[in-house]
Structure formats: C-alpha cells, structure tokens
C-alpha cells in the first residue's frame, strides 16, 4: 500500500503534538490538539475539558468561540456530553442531537443550545495520561457526514500523543503532576482571553480573528502562546500585532 497525501498530514499532526520543546505551553498543546482534530476529522469544532482538583469539570480550550461558549454552557448547566465524558473518562460514541433523538433525552437543556448553534452530533474520546483519564476531547459536528468509529480512533491517537507528551513533561518537572499543570493552564486561559480582547480592540477585529493572529504570531516565531499573551496584557504588543504602530 502506497502513501497518500492524507497519511502525511496525519503523521505531521502526530509529530507536531509529540515534538514539543522542554517546558512547552500546556494550553497551546491542547489547543493544537483541537485544531488538528478539526482539520483531520472534518468536524466543525473540538474542545478539551478536564476535571479540576475539586473534581469539577472545567473547559481548557476550544477550536473556536462557538465551541467554547457551548463548553461553558455545559459547565454552567452541569449537563452535556463534555461533562459526562469528562466525568466517566470513557469514549462517547457519536450521538445525534436532533430533537426526537437520544440527545434531547439525555441532555434536555444542552441539546437545544447546541442545535441553535448549528451542531448536529457530538462525540468524545478520553484524554489519557499514563492510562488514567484526566479529561475529554469533545467533537461537535455539523453537516451530513456521520462520524465513524475510525474517526474516533484517529482522534484517540492524537489525544494519546498529547497525553504522552504531558506525561513526559511531568517527569521533567519533578514536583508538579499533570493535574497541577492543567490547573495552571486554567489560569493562563484567562490571560489568553484578555489578550484576545486587547487585540480585538487594537486590530479592530472580532476575538476569533484576534486569536488567529495571536496563534500565528507565536507559531511563526516559535514563541510560547501564553508568554506572548502575557506580554500583550502587560502592554508589550509586538509591532506586527498592533495596527497602531
């Protein structure tokens, strides 16, 4: 069997998630996991949710604002596929959200919101770190194509690659365990949201575009995303991220 272009894309995604420098940005890794998932599986959105140290579900990152908003809704409602799969730590096979379907019975408050945002089905794979689940990678799908078991297998490989890299980071930083790293990522999340808002003002864009610019800037300069966001919130905005310069 000869390689097809898609094989290269999949291998590149796995390599990108595995080849992180020492002291890499956890939030950035998780965000890139959602981006690769969206690109390779063709879902509309993907997000990562985790259990914090008090056993509460919290969202870590999302591929876009619609997905992020729905993850927040689920935390607020304490109901939804991301909440279930994060708590259970197991695979959630694709669930059709259409009104008469299983979705509205299982998640009566979440389902109408997801449908209103244009999503038609959901699925999750566990985010595992050395065989124990610490969270979930959630897929929010729209469009006629159905998610398959093979799609979920691919996402699981991507998630396991990111989980393995997280685990290796732990052995480098003796005192911190993975949960603590993810907790830190929760607080850096706020810095990134603030930086998005600052850039939206400076660039005259919406927050989604502001984030695309922020991510692209960090990537092209191999700069840590959270560090870049911290610079922005301190008022040190790189010239090419600031139209007023």
């Amino acid at each position: 069997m000869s390689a097809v272009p898609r094989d290269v894309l999949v291998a590149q995604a796995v390599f990108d998630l595995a080849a992180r420098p020492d002291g890499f940005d956890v939030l950035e890794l998780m965000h890139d996991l959602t981006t690769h998932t969206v690109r390779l599986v063709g879902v509309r959105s993907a997000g990562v949710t985790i259990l914090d140290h008090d056993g509460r579900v919290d969202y870590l990152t999302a591929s876009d604002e619609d997905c992020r908003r729905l993850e927040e809704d689920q935390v607020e409602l304490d109901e939804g596929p991301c909440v279930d799969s994060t708590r259970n730590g197991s695979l959630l096979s694709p669930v059709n959200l259409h009104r008469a379907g299983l979705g509205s019975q299982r998640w009566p408050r979440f389902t109408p919101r997801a449908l209103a945002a244009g999503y038609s089905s959901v699925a999750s794979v566990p985010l595992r770190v050395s065989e124990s689940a610490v969270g979930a990678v959630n897929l929010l799908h729209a469009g006629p194509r159905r998610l398959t078991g093979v799609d979920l297998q691919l996402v699981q490989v991507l998630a396991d690659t990111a989980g393995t890299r997280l685990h290796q980071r732990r052995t480098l930083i003796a005192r911190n365990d993975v949960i603590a790293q993810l907790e830190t990522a929760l607080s850096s999340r706020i810095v990134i949201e603030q930086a998005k808002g600052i850039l939206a003002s400076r660039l005259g864009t919406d927050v989604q575009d502001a984030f695309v610019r922020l991510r692209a800037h960090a990537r092209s300069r191999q700069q840590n995303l959270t560090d870049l966001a911290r610079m922005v919130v301190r008022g040190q905005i790189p010239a090419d991220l600031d139209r007023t310069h």
Partner: protein
Amino acid sequence: MARDQWDSDSGDVPPPRDALTELLARARRAIRSGYGPGRALPSPTARLFGVDALTLNALTHERQLELLWADPPDGLGPELDTLQYTLGDGPTLQSAYEGRTVTEPDLAAADTARWPLFLPAAAGTPVRAVVALPLLLGGAGVGVLTGYRTTPGSPTTRQLDVLRDLAATLLLFLTADVAVQANGTTPGTGLRLYRAEVHQATGYLAAELDIPLGQALVRLRAHATAYDRALADLAHAFLTRSLAADALHR
C-alpha cells in the same frame, strides 16, 4: 532566620504542607458555598502561613483598596492597612498598582525612598518585614494579600508558595459574584466570571479606554450591577460593538 521562624511556628519538620492543602481545600468549598474568608478561614490563620498578620484588600472601581478581611481581626494588620490607606503609600498599594509580589525583609534597614511616608510611620509599630501578593485574574489585579511579620527575614520559597495558594483561594472569594449572592438565589460561585467573554471584554475595554485590566473588570462588574444586566451579556454587547466602550464611563 525566616526558616527558623516558620518551623517554630508550625511544629516539626517536615512542614505541614498537606495540612495547609487540606485547610485551603476546605476554605475553597466554604467560599464556593457563599461564606466569606472570616468563616472559611477561622482565626488564627496568619501564623499557619508563617506571618503574624494577614490582610486581604480588594480593588474598588474608584481605584481604591478596601480592607475585606484581616487575621487576627484587630491589631497589626488593620493598623498597618489604615496607615497605608491614609498615607497613600506602602507595599500593599505598590503591589496593587504594579501587579507583582512586593517583599521587604527588613523594614528598619530599607531605603526611605522606597516608601517615604509609610516607612517612618511603620517604624513606630512592631512590624519588621512584609510581603504583599497581588490577586491576579489573568493579567487583571483585583486585590492584594499582605503578610506582616514582627521579625525581619525574607520569606522562604515554600512560605511564598503557601501564601500564593492562600491568595489563589482568596481570589475565589473576590471573584464570587456579589450580585448573585444578594439575590439569595444561588451562592456566589463566581460562575459569571467564568465566562471567557467577560475576560475578553476586560481586555477589550482596557485597550479601548486605556485603563488597567483590573479597573476594566471592576467597572464592567459595577456597570452590570448598576444596570441590572447579566455580566456575560454586557461583555458580549461590548465585544460585538453593539454597546460603545465609553458607555462604561457613564
């Protein structure tokens, strides 16, 4: 020296990090159930954290600091807090404005230029060392936790670690939505501040109005309360430009 002080305060080595972790976990649960720090952290707390007095200040929308909690409730902490407030100068204020940790291991030996008004006044009190930690929500300073000691010495790394853990716990209290608590419907869980759009709007408004992030957040919350609007909806209105940023000034 600071290390000796710590050990004599808190018993034998190894240090009771687990006990403090448990104490803070209980405090977080209490704060999430709507209790204030006075209930969540029963006195005496300060000495468990290697200091003689602790104060918690919140930033108000007039850019002032407001003392919310002190342990012990009277004496050194409130006294030094009032001193800083009256003089407009000192470590707590510096930490609030600069958004960083400020320490002075020996106030008697410090250069008077550092706090020209506070240092001479503090010399008349038993305080000898101070550490002030900003309570930061992302890049937004929303308050300050200050520890005072009656003996000189720098805080140890571990002492700073546990004080940071305490600051993170108290941040939960500062960010619990008071307006929600006042309704009596749900305890202040801070869930409204959980919304990313609130933080996005904080950044957006700070840039639009050229004010610090902490101020933008405090004013956004004050505006939501004054006009009885849901914080996330108000944030959304600013971000989508359906409400002009300068509406916050009114």
